[in-house]
């Protein structure tokens, strides 16, 4: 059993401590917005915030995440209002297939939290998620739009 605090709610889950956080979130907590892409922390589809830091949840065990504040894509919008990154994603029509976008949005939200006005170099360094549809041009434009708002 493990107690995880996800999106402000405590989940008591029947999982082994070495279960990757990704699978505890998806299968035990039932929050499927966080996606499986590679399982080896390469692609970023499973990115969540742990204590505000963008983290690839497939590479973190449940035991490491216990006692920490976990935010998934489902918890990004506050009180029914979309997060500014989500709003910008809609305005810029960013997603194509959309599968990587939960992780992409979580990575961008963390970047903007740390650096509200990131340069292109900041974006290149911080956003390393794979998107096979190739939405990068819209991702970059949307980030700059948010930063200049």
């Amino acid at each position, binding site marked *: 059993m493990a107690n995880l605090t996800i999106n402000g709610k405590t989940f008591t889950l029947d999982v*082994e401590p070495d*279960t*990757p956080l990704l*699978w505890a979130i998806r*299968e*035990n907590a*039932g*929050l*499927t*917005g*966080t*996606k*499986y*892409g*590679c*399982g*080896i922390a*390469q*692609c970023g*589809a499973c990115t969540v915030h742990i204590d505000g830091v963008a983290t690839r949840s497939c590479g973190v065990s449940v035991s490491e995440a216990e006692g920490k504040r976990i935010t*998934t*894509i*489902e918890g*990004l*919008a506050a009180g029914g209002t*979309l997060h500014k990154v*989500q709003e910008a*994603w*809609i305005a810029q*029509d*960013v*997603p*194509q*297939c*959309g*599968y*990587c*976008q*939960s992780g992409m*949005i979580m990575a961008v939200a963390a970047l903007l939290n740390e650096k509200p006005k990131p340069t292109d170099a900041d*974006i*290149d*360094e911080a*956003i*390393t*998620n*794979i*998107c*096979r*549809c*190739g*939405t*990068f*041009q*819209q*991702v*970059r434009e949307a980030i700059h739009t948010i930063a200049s708002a």
Partner: protein
Amino acid sequence: MNKHVLPQMNRRAFVIGTAAAGAGLALGLDIPFGGPAVVRAADGSPEINAWVVVRPDDTVVIRVARSEMGQGSLTGLAQLVAEELECDWTKVTTEFPSPGQNVARKRVWGDYSTGGSRGIRTSQDYVRKGGATARMMLIQAAANDWKVPASECTAANSVITHTPSGRTTTYGKVAEAAAKLTPPADVKLKDPKDWRLVGKGVKRLDTPDKVTGTTVYGIDVKLPGMLNAAIKDCPVTGGKLKSYDEAKIAGMKGVKKIVKVGDSAVAVVADTFWHAKSALDALPIVWDEGENAKVSSATIAKWLAEGLDSGPAYVGNSNGDAKAALAGAAKTIEAVYNYPYQNHATMEPMNATALYTADKCEVWCGTQNGEAALAAVLEASELPADKCDVHKLMLGGGFGRRGQTDYVRQAVLIAKQMPGTPIKLLWTREEDMTHGRYHPITQCKLTAGFDASNNLTSLHMRISGQSILASLRPEALVNGMDTATFAGLNAKGDAPFGYSVPNLLIEHSMRNPHIIPGFWRGVNVNQNAIYIECFMDELAHAANEDPLEFRRRLMKDHPKHLAVLEAVAEKIGWDKPAPQGVFRGLAHFASYGSYVAAAAEISVTDGTKIKVHRIVAATDPGYAVNPAQIERQIAGSFVYGLSGLFYGGCTVKDGAIVETNFDTYDSMRIAAMPKVESIVMPSGGFWGGVGEPTIGVAGPAVLNAYFAATGKRIRSVPLRDQNITFA
């Protein structure tokens, strides 16, 4: 707010046809447009016809038969229907009718196959007619109510107006009556110049759910009592499952059952996927890998190289006498290129959820071909068509991979061994990359002859390598020849060669290794564009001529090809010097009915680090339904194509694919993304595709720029094998 909802239809309203597996799915297109019996959606709202349901609150549900995998045709097809329907676009929702419903209704929605960049171009005519027919019926119903001629009424934004009296009503109010009318026989479509919605870059309909994590992909399916399965198929295609030691994992947490799947795979079924995967990883498995285990990249390369000079070959395009002209040429130039296996690497690994009972089998999955998925369900379940269905979900990428149905078949074979329990089969990334349907491997020898005045008089292009159709659709071969191999190199058709050479011979020596090929975004465009467009650059330099001028002289009779090439040349400033340290390359191609070109600007550090600063791209797809989405498809195709060029290439060792995750099969990140400037220049009169054509031109444009920068030719893909990478 536009929203995509999962289809819910009252299946009892349908007359289940006699459609047995093969016969039912092989029926030709016979698309009726409604009446007289009213068919109702699950909420009771009437269908005006198969494409259009109108709810009392004026919401319009547009049915979309093609799949949505990111390419945007869900939105484009809805635009086409809505254009003719004259409905309120802000009240449009969409749904996917299931393949089983299509069979039951004699293929009322036509073809479900979503590949070959044909989602819009091969269904635009009948979906527009579906919208126009529904509009005429809605107007007629209002006219009947008012007892006035329909010709005195007009429709716009879901409001019908009787012009002489000024009376109005809405679609929602007359839908019931309209649904009972006999559809009109004579339906005229709008002149494209009158389009108001088609041609506009309206926002996608499926975005809001994709930014909140609520879109349901196949991997997200949840059914009551569902169990999860992980699978390992013999890593060497053609090999078999010899044995496995079930006792070793029987007691592991959550494990419910270990099952054989066909003769080459084993799956563990558990309460969670994580438990299933963990147990499968611990399961000792013995494979009988068979003869194919002797095959490696080196043996394949040797076999293909032999085909460049010897053995029979299929002729795809020829004129004059290329061999004689080459023999008499004043100067000849020769080069050999190659292009490797590539993995689709969709972000969402293959998966399907199946529920099998003695008299019914249902599957939930992302698929690019709902009807092929249904056929796989029938075959694997051994149940008739009216007992099976496939519920189509959004795809986490397709790129051609999800046109195949191997994962659907596996899910059903597992579910069959646990009747009554829904089983979600998910491939690990490793399984996904081990069992791809790989972009086929080829080599190409090109030989060109010049006369004494440096005029190109002959060209011989001999491709040696794998055919996709021979493996996946042998019935499509023409006297043994795979015509798709010649994409962009044909004398005519929707993928025509853009040059006139007096003596031309383009041929294919077919050699099919055991690695199963597949349709990988752009398909044969990827290698053919590199082969011909890099070689043309070589020839221009051999003739001491500017690459654009050299091409122009050969393209006089190919005005559509030339128009896109000139458009990118002009926009990138080809006639002016590039910025200091920046070098340019050009390429053009035609495929899937569209004409495309690219001009790249790059800089190179230490001869090995390439920074792609900018790519100007042009496409003439005939008609542009949604230019904003076309721009995204162009930029996206460059990411996919350049990822394959730089990082891709699947290696074969001991008969199996070596690269099994993104650590060894990498993909472009945002840091390497060039600025893509798109010119969407529809010239009208034809319907070309969008998702694939541009993928071919980024590669040769960048490689030609690399030569301009370094004086070195790259003729082998991927660049990682030559230690060349993104800067």
